[in-house]
């Protein structure tokens, strides 16, 4: 493989953690093209972002049969995204922070933040349990069904019985 630095492209590291990170950045990046853009497509294009609330999340994560697919998608996505993001930040900061002592501090902070975010994100995805009582209370308080569709989608209007009960 040619590694001419004059070619203007990033040179692959020789080995160790940096080589692992080099491959991981590329593999996670390519997977995130589908996972993250798919996530954006569902939440911003298919649905209206204004209709997202607790009930919307509950309908995905606690859906019968397919709920685990959404949880798996989100878990894989945040794992890859958090690694990709924090490793990218580390690479950027390494170009500006050159002292070895400072780098130890920065790297420790970066990896700690990464694991902390993975922990709370993973906890949320794996430990979620649908709270029907809360959704009922929300509907009574707001006088409308908790899961609304885009205004243009007249096919998915709420059943009249639910609206009447909510009033």
């Amino acid at each position, binding site marked *: *493989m*040619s590694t001419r630095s004059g*070619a*203007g*492209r*990033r040179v*692959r590291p020789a080995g160790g953690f940096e080589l692992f990170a080099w491959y991981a950045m*590329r593999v996670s*990046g*390519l997977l*995130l*093209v589908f996972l*993250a*853009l798919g996530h*954006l497509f569902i939440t*911003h*294009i298919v649905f*209206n*972002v*204004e*209709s*997202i*609330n*607790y009930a919307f*999340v509950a309908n995905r994560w606690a859906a019968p049969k397919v709920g685990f697919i959404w949880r798996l998608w989100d878990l894989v996505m*945040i794992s890859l*995204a*958090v690694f990709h*993001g*924090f490793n*990218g*930040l580390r690479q*950027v900061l390494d170009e*500006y922070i*050159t002292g070895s002592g400072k780098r130890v501090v920065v790297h420790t902070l970066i990896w700690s*933040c990464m694991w902390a*975010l993975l922990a*709370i*994100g993973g*906890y*949320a995805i794996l*430990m*979620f349990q649908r*709270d029907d009582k*809360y959704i009922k209370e*929300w509907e009574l308080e*707001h*006088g*409308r069904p908790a899961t*609304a569709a*885009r*205004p243009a989608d007249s096919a998915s209007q709420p059943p009249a019985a639910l609206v009447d009960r909510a*009033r």
Partner: protein
Amino acid sequence: MADTTRVPKYYVRGFRERITEGLRYGGGVGQWSWLVHRITGIGILLFLIIHIIDTFFVVAFPALYDHTVAIYGGIISGIDPSVNGYYWPLRWAFRLGELGLIACVLFHAINGVRIVLFDFWPKAVNYQKQLFRVVQITFWVIMLLVTIRVVSPLFSVPEHQQNVKASAGK
């Protein structure tokens, strides 16, 4: 190669000089795509941190989650009756921010594919200008469609307000 740990003189200079020198460097398309890739990456990371924390509210504090995401629709709720309500500029601001986020992720994704292409197929470097043109065209075509879809609801009454009016009329 006696002293390889010596910090290059370039790095010793101040942060501001490095930024201005970097902007003056005439790297052409490659330099600008590198800069935009980097800025969008950091922007997406900032949003990702906020987004993981707010999604944690779904499990920990469901009501707080609903109050938080309602702000996307321009609604302040759960604070004080004198403050609570619908604010259309808030709705517009979040919509435009949403569009900015989609633009960042979309550019970072398409340009990232271009970078990976160079890494695994080095000959592609010979066509880097054409490839960046492909990135630009793909980005703007998708962004045009996305903008229509994301911005158009702003010109109609939000669905929560439609319901409020419908129930108030009865």
